[in-house]
Structures are given as structure tokens and as C-alpha cells.
């Protein structure tokens, strides 16, 4: 006989009550854990994806949409910008680096991004096999794209027009896979990279070779500087100095067709929007936990009434008051600990299943197999909760008048 057997026997004697309390608490804890896993990982992904990009320049429209489209590749572009105008920005003295970006096609909903080598270098991407794109219609695949499409270096495919699956196929132009990237844990894993010229070519915009007398465009060197016909989707900028943050957005926004969007500002705005939802769900989690705490308290309190004789008999057998108090507290703590362990497991399980079943979740790289320090706080908190629920019943056990209880039957 030991404390464990004694407590377990009492819990086992009321199986439905015990199960209800554990399930109730585990639901509350699971909601908390799911929210924690999602919001924390999403935040980390968003921050790592926006790292190194100080400003995004695109066509006028929603700045959030521009950020979602060109950094996270989830929304659609706001429109196109003129190459010549983009160059003007890129040449600004406060710009350290400008990366062009041309969107338009996709393959099985994986976006094909026309850009240059600076873009993958933002995420420290390295080739796992093959080489970088050099000629027109050569592409490098992100790690997820390669593993899900099962393409290898040398394979060819036709892109589809538009950014969602099922667009009109560009049958006349076939892309060739020349390289595959290592896993970067960033949005790059879900992208197909190629040159800006390739994107123009697929859309039948002739790329004219420059003559020696013309200056090369600094964004797309194969095009003459100041070319007024070519268009880009957006431009990713890095500032040369913090002054850029003050001057550049205003400078860009003064251009009639351009807008500047700050990833830091827009993602902060995004978090506020998401935060409201997260908070609402968190309230639900707290409500569930409070209800389960009440239910555990009531269960302990009621069972203690039935157990007054048991407690008195135990005292006649030599049990000290402290021992009985400890038994009741252990019972409360066991319930909440079991509930929260089940909840943590359930939360991780739910996120894991979502990552397996829902493609969007899988693409973001969110996993259920990661444990945050906050979960230990949840477990410690549940111990405290159990103690709290058992405090009053334990106090009553402490005060049991043995003689009165025994004589009262």
C-alpha cells in the first residue's frame, strides 16, 4: 500500500466523474496548446521570412496584400510596376540592394518566381543538387516542391497561367529543372525560382538583347536601362542606412503608380488582426479550464462528504492529519496533472494531424512535434490548479472530528 494506490483507488471508484474531469480539463489545455503551437510557429515563420527585407515596392493597392503576396506568397499581386520606374527606386542612394520579382505562373499551385540570385541568398539557400538557373526557362526548385512533385534535375514541365492550380497551361514553353535547393525552413521551400526573363518569355514578351551602346538595366541586366515596356510585380529593398526608413517610403509613395509597404509594420498589423482571434479562442480555453476546475472541486468536495467515515477510520488506524491532507491534495493534483498531460498530448496530436491532412498547414512548415517552454508552465499551472481545487476539501479532512463522525452513524 502506498499513496499512489490509495489515490488511484479513490479515482477509480468514480470512473465517470474522473473521466469527465480529465476530459474537460484536457480540452481546455488542448485549445491552449494548439493556439500556442500555431501562433508561435506562425510568428517565427513570418519573422524569418521577412528577415532582411526592409521595404517592398509594388503597384498601388493594399499594402498588406503586397506583403502577403511578395514575401509570404499567399495573396495575389496588386498589379504590375514599370521596370523603368522600379529602376529609379533601385538607384536611390539610400537603397543598398534591390531584388526584382516577377510573378505570373505556377505549377500545381507552386509559384514560379522570376528574380535573381539575391533572392535565394536572402534565406541563405544552398543548392542540394544541380546548378543555378542561367538561361531562359531554367528553374531551381524549393525543397518542398521537389519532394512533393518528385521532380529531379533534368525534368521538364509546363507552367500554368495564374497563381492557383488549374490555370491555362503554357504548352509552347517548357521549363527545365536545373537545380534543387536545400531545405531552408522558409517560404523558399515552396517556390520555383527562375530568371525574370523566363517569366517574360512564357508570356510572349520578347526579350531583346541589348546593343553595346545602351546601358544595362541594373535589375534585369539583359534589358536596356530605362526600358519602358517591361514590367515587374514588385521590388524588395534593403536600406543602406536607417535614414531609408524615414525617406524611402515617402519617396516611393509620391510616385503616382507605386506604393511602399513595410514588412515589419504590416506583419505587426497582421499579428494584431490574428491576435484578436487568438485571444477569443484563449478565452474559450480559460472558460473550459475554469469549468473543469470547478468540476474537480465539486467532485472532491462531494466525495469527501461520503468519505468522512473513511477519513475517521483512517485516523483510528494511526493516520496523521497531515497524511490525510496530503492524500486529498494528491488526488486533486493527480486529476489536473492527468488532464493537462492528456491536453498537451491532444494539442500536439491535433496540430500534427492538421499538418498531415491540410496542405496549407503543411506548406507553412508548422509541426506538432515541437515543445515550447510555455508548456511546462501549463503543466506547473495545472499542478497549482489541482492544489487549489483540493485545498478546501483537504482543510475539511484536516478538521474531521473523528469521534463525532464515528458516533454519528
Amino acid at each position: 500500500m502506498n499513496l499512489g494506490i490509495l489515490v488511484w483507488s479513490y479515482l477509480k471508484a468514480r470512473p465517470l466523474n474522473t473521466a469527465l474531469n480529465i476530459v474537460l480539463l484536457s480540452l481546455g489545455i488542448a485549445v491552449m496548446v494548439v493556439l500556442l503551437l500555431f501562433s508561435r510557429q506562425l510568428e517565427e515563420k513570418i519573422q524569418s521570412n521577412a528577415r532582411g527585407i526592409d521595404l517592398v515596392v509594388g503597384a498601388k493597392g493594399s499594402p498588406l496584400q503586397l506583403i502577403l503576396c511578395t514575401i509570404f506568397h499567399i495573396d495575389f499581386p496588386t498589379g504590375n510596376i514599370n521596370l523603368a520606374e522600379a529602376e529609379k527606386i533601385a538607384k536611390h542612394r539610400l537603397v543598398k540592394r534591390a531584388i526584382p520579382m516577377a510573378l505570373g505562373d505556377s505549377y500545381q499551385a507552386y509559384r514560379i518566381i522570376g528574380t535573381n540570385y539575391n533572392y535565394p541568398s536572402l534565406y541563405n539557400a544552398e543548392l542540394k543538387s544541380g546548378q543555378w538557373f542561367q538561361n531562359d526557362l531554367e528553374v531551381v526548385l524549393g525543397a518542398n516542391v521537389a519532394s512533393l512533385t518528385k521532380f529531379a534535375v533534368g525534368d521538364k514541365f509546363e507552367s500554368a497561367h495564374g497563381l492557383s492550380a488549374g490555370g491555362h497551361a503554357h504548352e509552347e514553353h517548357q521549363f527545365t529543372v536545373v537545380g534543387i535547393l536545400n531545405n531552408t525552413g522558409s517560404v523558399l521551400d515552396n517556390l520555383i525560382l527562375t530568371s525574370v526573363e523566363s517569366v517574360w518569355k512564357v508570356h510572349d514578351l520578347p526579350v531583346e538583347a541589348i546593343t553595346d551602346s545602351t546601358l544595362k538595366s541594373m535589375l534585369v541586366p539583359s534589358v536596356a536601362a530605362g526600358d519602358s515596356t517591361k514590367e515587374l510585380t514588385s521590388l524588395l529593398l534593403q536600406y543602406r542606412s536607417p535614414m531609408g526608413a524615414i525617406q524611402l517610403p515617402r519617396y516611393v509613395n509620391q510616385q503616382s503608380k507605386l506604393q511602399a509597404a513595410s514588412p515589419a509594420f504590416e506583419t505587426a498589423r497582421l499579428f494584431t488582426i490574428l491576435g484578436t482571434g487568438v485571444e477569443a479562442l484563449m478565452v474559450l480555453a480559460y472558460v473550459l479550464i475554469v469549468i473543469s476546475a470547478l468540476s474537480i472541486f465539486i467532485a472532491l468536495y462531494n466525495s469527501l462528504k461520503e468519505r468522512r467515515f473513511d477519513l475517521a477510520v483512517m485516523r483510528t488506524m494511526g493516520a496523521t492529519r497531515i497524511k490525510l491532507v496530503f492524500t486529498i491534495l494528491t488526488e486533486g493534483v493527480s486529476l489536473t496533472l492527468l488532464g493537462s498531460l492528456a491536453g498537451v498530448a491532444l494539442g500536439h496530436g491535433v496540430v500534427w494531424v492538421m499538418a498531415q491532412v491540410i496542405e496549407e498547414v503543411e506548406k507553412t512548415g508548422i509541426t506538432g512535434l515541437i515543445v515550447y517552454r510555455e508548456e511546462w508552465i501549463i503543466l506547473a499551472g495545472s499542478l497549482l490548479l489541482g492544489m487549489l481545487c483540493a485545498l478546501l476539501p483537504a482543510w475539511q479532512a484536516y478538521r474531521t472530528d473523528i469521534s463525532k463522525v464515528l458516533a454519528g452513524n
Partner: protein
Amino acid sequence: MQVWLDNPARLLFLRTQMVAVKNLLYTYAGSKPMSFPDFQISSGEHALLLGDSGSGKTTLLHLLGGLLRGYTGSVQVDGAELARLSEKELDHLRGRKIGFVFQRNHLISVLTVKQNLLLAPYLAEVPPAGDRVEEVLNHLSLSHYKNQSVLKISQGQAQRVAIARAVLNKPSVILADEPTSALDDKNCERVINLLLQAACENNTTLLVATHDQRLKSVISKHIILHA
């Protein structure tokens, strides 16, 4: 026999006083004081506590077991004046020196027969002696039911489990409160015989509070309480 052989003090004073009551008065809040007759019971001796309902049999047993405190006069168990013991020392005394048997067998309903017995050394913080539990179970013919829930055994069997639990730690005194009143003649005889037998084996003093006439012929020493 073992127990008193390994206690040299008992060899010298073979019939020491195990229970002694003198000038005892107890007052329940808001009622008249109850007085109790003086008596002594030697170790290994047995006595019946007789009297009508309300004459204070249970009160006296609770006083002897240290469950009721705040008496005037003297109550000594195994040489200790109970009023002078701290709460913790009383717990210790109850766990090691005193065994209780009640009318309605207060077994712990969520445990099995054997677990109820194992509870005695656990709560008294006595190291569980290897096969003592099996020995007692065999002795009281309970081995067959040892893994059953105590809710599934008969009243007579349950009272035997209660006796087994009371004698498990080899107490010096067993205080029994109406142990046979709820039993039929056959079970009554069996239970009192088992109690006497278990008491004899460990040189335990047996004090049985009862109004059960059937016990009068079995234990000759009578202490009579008057309301």
C-alpha cells in the same frame, strides 16, 4: 507469544495494567457531565463494557482511544496518560498499540480485502512485515476473498476483515464497539471467538463495548455503565 517475549518489561511484570481509568468525567458541550466507574484491565485480560444505550459506552471507548480529549480524571493506556500526549503521539499510539473494531465494519470501500489490511501498516507507518498479511488472512479464513472488493463480501466476512485489520499491527489493546450486534448467532459466535483467539496470540487486551447478551458468558470480566 512472540510479542511479549521480545519485550523484557512484560516478562518482569507479566500482568501489568494495560488500561486504567480513575475518577473519569467527560462533558459534551451543552449537556450534563458523564462520570465513569474506576477500573483497570491487565495486559492480556479481557473485559466487557456493558450498559444501556446512551450510558456512554462509545464515549468511554473514544476516550480510551484518544479520539475524545478534554476529560477530567485519568485515562491511562499502556502506562501513558492520554491527556499528556500530543496529537502526533496519539496518532502514533493508535497506530501501534490500539486496534479498533466497530459495529458497522468501517472498511475502505474502494479497496480490496487485502488492500484494507495493508492500509494498517501504511497509515501507522509501521514497516509492513513480509507475510503477516497472508498469515492473518489465513487465520481468519479470508485468503479466498483477498482480492475481492469489500463491497462484494457478506456482513460476517466483512467483520472478519475488520478484525484482521485491527490485529494486523499486533496491538496491545483492541477496543471493539458492538462488534457482534449486527450479526446472527452463528456469525456472532465465530467473530467473538476469532477476536479472543487473535487477542490471545499477541497477549492483547480486549475491551468489548456491547449490549449483546450473547457475549456475557464468553468474557467474564464486566464493567457496567449507568446512564
